[in-house]
């Protein structure tokens, strides 16, 4: 058996999920909200790419990707403005329900537009090329995904640790109200957080759908759920945690299939989730918080 091939493909899936998981973890860090609509945003960005390429065939593919990323960021921004910001003072459960509502809406909207049919993602040059590496034949995106995910994460962590905006973000996630009193424009920080999350989801969707080319309105459900588990396993709120969690989930699922446990592959990730939650609810990299009375 060729274990390397499973490891590499597991890391690839992990890398793609990591980019989605960062979106979950950043939003949770700031708003303490599980953004259930994030997986659907991932799917919508794939669908957008299909329609952009189909409607503007003369547009170079690089520009099409930029346009798609811009639109995804805009949609992420709209979701925050319309569905979450009016509920800023509402109980946490209401916001979570609103997130579920948004994901329901996005799914149904895409199902209506596409007629419920699965659409083919366009061919992406370079990352869509077939290569042979370490004796494994696959698309370049498979080998690049974990690298790109880690590079983007490093850049993101640098931004958060070394810029003024990053400092504002850290302050908001530490203490929402105090940072507001300190003159931080909360709404701007939140909008930018959503924009970053949406941008990473768009990047992840190009890497992911370049390989798994059929997209329908349910294509976001599975990656969304897995990325979300990854974020929790890694420690929700922690960016490196999300990446590590995603890589663990990706590799664990691939190895499960390698060892003849394909029937259990989804049970394994959920099992991992419950074990982590019970043993260390804050995840691998999560910080311990004490509940204030």
């Amino acid at each position: 058996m060729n274990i390397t091939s499973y490891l590499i493909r597991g890391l690839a899936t992990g890398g793609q999920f990591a980019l989605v998981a960062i979106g979950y973890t950043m939003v949770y860090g700031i708003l303490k909200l599980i953004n259930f609509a994030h997986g659907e945003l991932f799917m919508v960005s794939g669908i957008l790419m299909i329609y952009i390429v189909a409607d503007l065939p003369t547009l170079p593919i690089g520009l099409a990707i930029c346009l798609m990323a811009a639109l995804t960021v805009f949609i992420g921004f709209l979701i925050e403005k319309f569905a979450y910001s009016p509920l800023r003072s509402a109980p946490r459960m209401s916001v979570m329900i609103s997130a579920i509502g948004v994901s329901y809406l996005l799914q149904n909207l895409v199902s209506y537009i596409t007629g419920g049919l699965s659409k083919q993602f366009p061919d992406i040059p370079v990352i869509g090329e077939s290569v042979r590496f370490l004796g494994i034949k696959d698309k370049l995106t498979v080998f690049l995904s974990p690298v790109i995910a880690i590079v983007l994460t490093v850049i993101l962590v640098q931004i958060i640790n070394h810029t003024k905006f990053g400092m504002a973000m850290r302050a908001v996630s530490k203490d929402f109200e105090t940072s507001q009193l300190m003159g931080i424009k909360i709404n701007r920080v939140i909008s930018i957080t959503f924009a970053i999350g949406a941008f990473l989801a768009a990047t992840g969707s190009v890497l992911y759908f370049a390989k798994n080319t059929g997209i329908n309105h349910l294509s976001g459900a599975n990656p969304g759920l897995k990325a979300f588990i990854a974020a929790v396993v890694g420690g929700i709120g922690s960016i490196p945690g999300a990446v590590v969690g995603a890589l663990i989930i990706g590799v664990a699922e691939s190895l499960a299939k390698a060892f003849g446990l394909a029937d259990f592959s989804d049970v394994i990730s959920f099992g991992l989730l419950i074990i982590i939650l019970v043993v260390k609810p804050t995840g691998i990299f999560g910080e311990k918080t004490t509940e204030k009375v």
Partner: protein
Amino acid sequence: MKKMMALLLSVVMMMTLLTGCGGAAAGGSGSAGGTLTAYVLAEKGDTYSLGLANNFKTAFEANGGKVIMETFPTNTTNFSDYLQKSLDNKADVIFAPNSTTVAANLLANANDLGIECPIMAGDTWESSVILDAVKGTDLEVYCSTFFDESDSSSPAAKDFVAGFKDWLNNNSEYKDMNGGNDIVAAVSALGFDAYNVALAAIREAANEKGSDLTSIDIANALWGLSIDNAVTGKIQFDQNGDAIKDSAYIKKAGDGAFEFMKVQTSPNNAAQGTPADYGNATGVKLDTANKKIVIGVYEPTSGNNAAGGKQEVLGIYYANSLDDTVKIDGTDYKVELYVSDNGSLEENAVTAASNIVGQGALVSLGSYGSGVSIAAAQTFEDAGIPAIGVSCTNASVTEGHNYYFRTCFLDPFQGSVMAQFAWETVSK
């Protein structure tokens, strides 16, 4: 410190996963010289997919072959790891009877991995989705199906193909529904036949009962029906309510079209059935006030099976456009179609079927997909209206359901036909 502990824990878990299951995996590698190995991949919880996969497995093993069967959860989009498994086990053939939504990704992944062995599936894969996925690749993809558009031996089929293509080309909306081309899918032909079977039964019932006819009379008429000039061959129902079929067409996905490979036949000695005992069921009465007959079309026009469901609906629409009046007791009754979408989901089945019943339908046609058909069977039975399955191939659809008929062959037949074909293809 705690972080380290947690990391350690996850590493330990991974190790146990690796070592604990190593034993199970050791036995399954490498195809022994001489015997043929098939890798079978089915979708969890999909009645059609699992039923056909199991039938194929039984037949392939009966030939002396080895079968590795795995299942994947719903909404899976990446099949590389499963396909890698077939490479590791040096599979000679892959059998993956799944929905076209799954196929699009599966075939793209197979191409990435450079899979060389033939990939085979059942009737669902005769779709333009597969042609698009195979275009520009070296994949060798086969499927079994109910009908071949280039089969010129039957005049009924020839007329249908020519007429249907014309109709599609003159109607851009329907052409879009067909996947943007004028390829005649087998399910469209079956849909066409199912509609005509329903109309023939209504006419038969009208001959006997006049305007007093109910849906029960139509069900009774179905049992005695014998249509020789149907597009997909002679149609007669056996004791289970299944059309007596003895041949399947095997096709290969080529560049932009399916190439006909061969007709695989296996004798079917079933005799025509006798009417079931419908007790004192009252059924639905003919709508003499509005002078119309409603025929329900219970199909998935959304969800995983939407592509096939829409093609089936097209066949029914086309049949309706050719023949939409029935004369009963000297008055013309207009036949109206009521399309109810089951969304390819079993939990929608009862509602979608109830909508058809609520419209006062006398007969229902469909569905594409066995799971949804089984789930709706009881609703049609309660209302006392016969349902004519078009391309639901799982044996459980008609078994024990006196009101369910079907115009296609069954999975045990299809599975053994494909196993036979796979055997012949790879042992060359």
